[in-house]
């Protein structure tokens, strides 16, 4: 299609049909003041700040909502345009308090900035200003000063268009308009923090950051999120060696201009009381503080004694450098190391043709038109990828779901099959024909995506193989979301070494090293893991935090937390992203790669002498082209039915703010709705079968233990399933995240099986 010619302030340019004057202005690189316009949101044209003069138009027009016509002549800073903009600013300031020095947004406020250029020196408005009461929107977003709101509705549009759920709205009209959540509810979206960035004034601010610092006091350091496989780019803001805020760093290919609340607010854990600052060594049964030399000496002795019988469990969010040195240590000792701690099926090891990955760049997700999502709590596991698929769905993509729970994805789902976990592989095999097959084959660009639940499933290899064969049949791309921030990094560092995480726990070893791992939360079966650790002769734990369970570790070494170490994450699309430390490690803590390096050298192993994390990274990558190593192809046999299915099965998700040590210790995240103590959810049929009532206590037992917990109803769950979150202290005694449970009423003990 031909282009449209437009002249802006005397410069001519061509823009495609359908462009607005604002698009053209942006293309030209000039600036028109605006508040409500945001390139990722729909056009509202309600702030009127972007009024410009258009030749032959009788009055100024809003640049954001005026489509370009051929030959249009626009003037953005003529007298008429400037008068219009000044006039709008005067009206915006009528009800806005003129007390920037006491506003939390002061110094980083778009209204304040533009008022300098477009406002008057003093107000002509002498009458009373309106007052809007504060709202309680939950622990993350502060709406304390709603009188400052200029009704741009960015937050409302963000909810409806990006987060997928309209939690805020603007009620009433005219000067009575105000932003509210429906009847006093909180904002619970896992992306809600972005509203703070979007708000052009001080109406919505960050609750944890409020009045902690002024923007000009903060140093800004780039970083990468350690929480999920997206690898969102971050700006870590620091004052006096303390992280005070985390904001998104725009990267259109990865996180656009968004980050999830987990990425944004987990930093609160860094400044908590339970950070470990000095090495601990067990003396007379007690962990006591000591110096580094003593602690490292004990570790070297302990590991030497165990020799080959050594197992290393590394958090999946470890950096590439940490993985690399961990893998070298395990190899040098002849022991084992793995990072796939929440997995329980390792039968695909040795049968993969490459490193599992998303199968496409992240940005491509948005362009898919047919998607089959298998076994994924997507909004909790990879919130930003859920947003990408939501945008695809809005553009017409048909999303199909095969899963064991029917959580609201906040996007239209074309077809769903919800089955018991044990039936998940069978359900996939049965997809060769039927509605989903029809949908999947009717598009241009189809993908099958395996979520965390599918990868952590006891039949994960079979699920993968079935998905692979379906992808071939439907000519679809197969993608693996990656249940770790740095899963690809782990494989690149040549992990697993020796044995899988499952085998290391199954057959206890004499010595263990835990790298930023809390076995009571971070592994597939906490009960078995703790049993293995307790029976070991020697356990060393590298952790940024004081251990929650104190009885298994013999030495605890304080490692630098996220933001305190340099390193590299490889995200699910195979993007290698290195980052520097934003602050110095707290107390005597050291970056884990340095601890491992020192330990390796101390024990007399070769190839541990790296001066910088970059050297370790380069040694690990060895000049290899990462993208050529990625493949989702396996040679696992597609079928063979599993063992007899249990009558009542556990469906375990990892709640979003329990996924890792940082999120678990972030006070604001722990106050959200998502962090409430998990309930045993089941459908009404199972509930009435055991004779319990919703809200009452039940006793849930597994092969390893029993817990008493409150029961709830979720009719989206399949028959014979109890959904009970993992990674939580209230359910840790139940052990494995999959498998058989028995359940009975706990109030009078008279329940049925």
């Amino acid at each position, binding site marked *: 299609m031909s282009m449209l010619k437009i002249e802006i302030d005397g410069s001519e340019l061509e823009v495609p049909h359908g462009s607005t004057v604002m698009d053209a202005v942006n293309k030209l690189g000039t600036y028109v003041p605006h508040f409500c316009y945001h390139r990722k949101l729909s056009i509202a044209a309600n702030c009127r700040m972007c009024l410009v003069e258009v030749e032959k138009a009788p009055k100024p027009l809003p640049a954001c909502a005026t489509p370009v016509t051929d030959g249009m002549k626009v003037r953005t800073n003529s007298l008429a345009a400037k008068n219009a903009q000044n006039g709008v600013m005067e009206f915006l300031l009528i009800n806005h308090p003129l007390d920037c020095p006491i506003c939390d947004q002061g110094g980083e406020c778009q209204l304040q900035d533009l008022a300098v250029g477009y406002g008057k020196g003093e107000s002509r408005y002498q009458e009373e200003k309106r007052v809007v009461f504060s709202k309680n929107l939950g622990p993350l977003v502060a709406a304390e000063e709603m009188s400052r709101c200029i009704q741009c509705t960015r937050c409302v549009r963000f909810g*409806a268009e990006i987060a997928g*759920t*309209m*939690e*805020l*709205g*603007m*009620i*009433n*009209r005219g000067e009575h308009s105000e932003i*509210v*959540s*429906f*009847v006093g509810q909180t904002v619970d979206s896992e992306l809600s923090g972005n509203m703070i960035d979007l708000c052009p004034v001080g109406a919505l601010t960050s609750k944890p950051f409020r009045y902690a610092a002024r923007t000009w006091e903060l140093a800004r350091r780039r970083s990468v999120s350690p929480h999920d496989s997206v690898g969102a780019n971050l700006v870590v803001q620091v004052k006096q060696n303390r992280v005070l805020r985390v904001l998104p760093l725009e990267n259109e290919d990865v996180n656009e201009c968004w980050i999830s609340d987990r990425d944004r607010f987990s930093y609160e854990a860094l400044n908590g009381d339970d950070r470990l600052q000095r090495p601990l060594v067990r003396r007379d049964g007690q962990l006591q503080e000591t110096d580094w030399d003593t602690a490292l000496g004990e570790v070297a002795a302990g590991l030497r004694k165990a020799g080959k019988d050594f197992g290393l469990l590394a958090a999946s969010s470890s950096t590439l450098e940490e993985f690399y040195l961990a893998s070298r240590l395990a190899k040098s000792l002849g022991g084992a190391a793995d990072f796939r701690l929440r997995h329980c099926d390792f039968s695909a090891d040795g049968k993969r043709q490459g490193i599992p990955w998303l199968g496409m760049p992240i940005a491509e997700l948005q362009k898919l038109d047919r998607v089959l999502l298998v076994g994924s709590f997507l909004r909790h596991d990879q919130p930003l990828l859920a947003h990408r698929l939501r945008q695809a769905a809005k553009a017409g993509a048909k999303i199909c779901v095969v899963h064991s729970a029917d959580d609201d994805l906040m996007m239209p789902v074309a077809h769903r099959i919800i089955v018991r976990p044990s039936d998940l592989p069978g359900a996939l095999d049965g997809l060769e024909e039927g509605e989903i097959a029809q949908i999947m084959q009717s598009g241009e660009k189809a993908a099958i995506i395996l979520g965390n639940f599918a990868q952590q499933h006891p039949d994960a290899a079979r699920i993968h193989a079935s998905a692979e064969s379906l992808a071939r049949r439907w000519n679809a791309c197969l993608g693996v979301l990656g249940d770790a921030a740095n899963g690809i990094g782990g494989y690149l560092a040549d992990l697993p070494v020796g044995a899988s995480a499952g085998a290391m726990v199954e057959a206890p070893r004499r010595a263990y090293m835990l790298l930023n791992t809390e076995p009571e939360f971070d592994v597939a079966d906490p009960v078995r893991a703790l049993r293995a650790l307790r029976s070991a002769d020697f356990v060393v734990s590298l952790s940024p935090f004081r251990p929650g369970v104190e009885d298994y570790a013999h030495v605890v070494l304080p490692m630098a937390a996220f933001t305190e170490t340099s390193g590299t994450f490889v995200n699910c699309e195979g993007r290698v992203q290195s980052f520097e430390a934003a602050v110095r490690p707290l107390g005597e803590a050291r970056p884990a790669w340095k601890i491992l390096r020192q330990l390796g050298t101390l024990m007399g192993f070769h190839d541990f002498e790296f001066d910088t994390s970059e050297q370790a990274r380069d040694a690990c990558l060895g000049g290899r082209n990462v993208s050529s190593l990625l493949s989702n192809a396996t040679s696992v046999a597609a079928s063979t039915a599993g063992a007899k299915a249990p009558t009542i099965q556990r469906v375990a998700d990892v709640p979003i703010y329990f996924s890792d040590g940082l999120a678990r210790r972030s006070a604001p995240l722990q106050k959200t709705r998502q962090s409430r103590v998990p*309930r045993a*959810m089941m459908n009404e049929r199972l509930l009435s079968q055991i004779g319990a009532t*919703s*809200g009452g206590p039940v006793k849930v037992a597994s092969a390893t233990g029993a817990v008493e917990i409150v029961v*709830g*109803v*979720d*009719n989206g769950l399949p028959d014979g399933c109890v959904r009970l979150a993992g990674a939580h202290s209230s359910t840790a005694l139940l052990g494995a995240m999959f498998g058989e449970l028995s359940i009975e009423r706990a109030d009078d003990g008279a329940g049925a099986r």
Partner: protein
Amino acid sequence: MSEIAAATSAARANALSDASLARIDREIAKYPPEWKQSAVMAALSIAQDERGWLSTETMDFVAGYLGMAPVAVYEVATFYNMYNLKPTGKHKLTICTCLPCGLQGSLDAADHLRNRLKVDFNETTPDGNFTLKEGECMGACAMAPVILVNNKRMCDYMSHEKIDALIKELGGE
């Protein structure tokens, strides 16, 4: 989730009558299926016809019926002042007090109404027969003063005599 279950059962309890739902369905049919929410204004007014006013629960039900976010329905219901967000008297009298009407005597008419009914704006007579409301432009400036009875019946050129007659007709003194 249990909240969803609770919301569903609450929605069932707040369901409108079949006759109202049939009327709403007729409105929905006027728009393409993916734009069901275009019927929200009509649906709210039908719901109000049945219930007399729009409670939060009623708006929740309408939201669920049209597949909209509840807060989006709340936005619409608070924007237009013909929707009653609180119970009103049997007859809601809304008098326009905008500038053109005001110039043509509607402020005087409003005073007369207040004196006759002995209530102020946004108040209901003790017998529950009348609620008095101040309205925005009704597009009938030429016929000022104008009074709207229960959102549906427009009375124009409302002199004191005509106001007295209207009050009498509606069962007042």
